[in-house]
């Protein structure tokens, strides 16, 4: 049988590095906030001349509003232009400049400001959601494993795996935000919350097998039990991730831009979640159970010395 637990320090260090890189990038680069997520102004216009979306976007870019999002709406010729927050003067200025370039507006137009208050509330609510979800999961997993010697360990490891997945998804987004200008929006937050659900689902299946094998008493050695459980459930873990990835990829290819953020977060999360549930959470459980942290540090310094 494959000996995975023997390499547990390796797996923990891989996850540790990934988390550290994500954290550093998150702190140093931050996340690029989209108009929808932060706050902004929305201009609805209708031009006398027929214009393509590209023409409107190009004109806005040349006017210094390259961060704006242009959306064509009904009736034909109506455009919603979302920009960063503009005050009264900037609004008038934008209207005048647009008409100079693209011809007069036909009919009514409207200008709306999206309150920054709402953006703040959204971010706060999402953070609360993550915290409450983590607490709920910790409580449930601890309860579900109450017959085990250390039920709290199972709950905590599931949460650490969850943080691992969410952090990596955030980290990847912050890196791509800096390189490719990926912005975060409400769909992104939904994606992160979905990743959390998915991550725990996977981890719990493996913990469940550990519990079953412990009760069956397949071995007095916890390491053997963990290894056997991870190997037993390996096919399931990979197959489920594969089927989920397949449908998510179908979403990305056919629905495209508007939920791109959501889908990309899911893809990152599914991959990170599969890794953390198979290689990270069970190993963490084992290392913690045996209180091997001293060995871990010794192992780390040993690697440093020899390399």
């Amino acid at each position, binding site marked *: 049988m494959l000996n995975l637990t023997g390499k547990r320090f390796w797996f923990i260090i891989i996850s540790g590095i990934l988390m550290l890189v994500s954290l550093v990038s998150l702190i140093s680069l931050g996340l690029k906030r989209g108009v*929808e997520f932060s706050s902004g102004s*929305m201009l*609805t216009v209708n031009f006398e001349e027929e214009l393509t979306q590209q023409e409107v976007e190009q004109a806005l870019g040349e006017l210094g509003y390259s961060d704006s999002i242009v*959306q*064509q*709406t*009904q009736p034909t010729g109506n455009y919603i232009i979302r920009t960063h927050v503009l005050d009264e003067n900037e609004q008038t200025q934008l209207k005048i400049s647009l008409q100079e370039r693209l011809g007069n507006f036909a009919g*009514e137009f*409207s200008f*709306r*400001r*999206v*309150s920054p208050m*709402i953006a703040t*509330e*959204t971010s706060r*609510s999402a953070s*609360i*959601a993550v915290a409450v*979800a983590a607490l*709920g*999961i910790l409580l*449930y*997993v601890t309860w*579900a494993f109450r017959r085990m010697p250390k039920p709290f360990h199972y709950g905590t490891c599931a949460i650490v795996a969850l943080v691992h997945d969410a952090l990596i998804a955030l980290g990847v987004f912050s890196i791509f935000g800096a390189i490719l200008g990926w912005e975060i929006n*409400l*769909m992104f*937050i*939904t994606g992160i*919350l*979905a990743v*959390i*659900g*998915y991550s*725990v*689902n996977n981890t*719990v*299946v493996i*913990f*469940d*097998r550990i*519990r*079953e094998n412990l009760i069956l008493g397949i071995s007095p050695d916890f390491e053997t039990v963990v290894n056997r459980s991870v190997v037993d459930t390996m096919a*399931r873990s990979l*197959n*489920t991730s*594969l*089927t*989920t990835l*397949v*449908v*998510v990829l*179908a*979403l990305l290819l*056919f*629905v*495209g831009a*508007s*939920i791109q953020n959501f*889908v990309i977060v899911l893809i990152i999360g599914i991959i990170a979640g599969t890794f953390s549930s198979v290689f990270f959470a069970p190993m963490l459980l084992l290392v913690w159970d045996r209180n091997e942290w001293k060995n871990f540090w010794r192992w780390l310094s040993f690697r440093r010395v020899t390399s």
Partner: protein
Amino acid sequence: MRRNTLTLIIILVLFISSVLALLFPVLGRQGMRLGLDLQGGLHILYEADLSSVEPGTEDEIIEGVMGVLGNRINPLGVTEPVIQRQGEDRILVELPGLSITDREKERLARVAVLEFGETAAQGEEAKWENELGRWKPATAEVNGEVKELTSRYFRQNTYVSPSQAGGVDLVFEWDAEGRVLSEQITGRLLGQRLGIFEGDTAVMGEDGRPIAPVVQNVITEGGRITGLSFTEANSLSQQLNAGRLPVSLSVLSDETVSPTLGANFINQSILAGVIGLVLVMLFMILYYRLPGALASLTLVFYGALVLALFKMIPVTLTLAGLGGFILSIGMAVDANVLIFERMKEELRSGRTVGAAIEAGFNRAWNAIRDANITTFIVCLILIWIGSTIDAGAPVQGFGLTLLVGVGVSMFTAILVTRTFMRLSVHTGLANRISLFSPEVRKK
């Protein structure tokens, strides 16, 4: 065997009713309920100014404002408007499938006031027009000042009482200034109609006609408005008790989405869903053989049942919700995968196919339960958080669709796949063990 046949019949009945529910109108609904992003429409978040309001009456005032908003929205012909209180002082209005002008949008948020009107003479400017004629505001002079008669002069104690005719009356009292106005106006209009208007339209009675009673005698103290339906009288009373107060609404955010944009999303999502479904089925059949084929059959059943539930609950489908549904297709096979992997293990340890099926299902149950309950927890939190934030509909929609999806997937994997498998054992298919696990035969 008989039990399995019975279950199979139940499953078939459920499947057929799901398909029927999807094809024909259910509870007066032809298609799915679609969110703004898919259907197009208007989304406005108002903030009510409660600074000048007596503490303790905020709830009543917000409800009155919401009632007025409803009255103003009804004539616009929106099928499923959403008017929802959010937090202390905010009101969310969603008008799917509607595009209105900015002026109409402004009008929605005006303070709730009833106005009384008298027939406008030929050539006079009319403020209202309806089947009963042209109307102008009913006015009178108080202390040398011309004033219009409106519900601003109502005392804040209107109530609903049974009328002699068997219906209900809305009973109101004038305040001091209102009495003077009313006395002059009703004195002048004896034998003529007094129209009652709210905003741009007449207040409608239970019979669907504008309420415009003929003045029988001079009214000083107060009066009764007859002909309203009970609910209408009730909500009017609420509106008036609140509407007299100057509660102004300001727009915090608003958004309009084009209907064609939404239609496009739906088609793309259907395509993505079908392709995802087919790929997952292919994978399951290639990897798990006969059980995989049975699970694929279950997956079709799953899709029909979930969509029928979405329609009946009804779940408002947003783009994120569709994403949640499509994601749930991938996760729906998870329970099957868990069971089949278990079965393979049992087959390897030398059990018969029938015994392996039972053991596989029984042993996988704990894992399925615990894993899905954690997902439920996350879904419930998503639904809760989504309801507390503006523009939270995508979050909520995703949580709800995933919740329904995961719940149904537990049911289909445990009951439907198992029944299919048991039946296949009885029909003799299962004697060919290679159909279950190619690896076992190789041994």
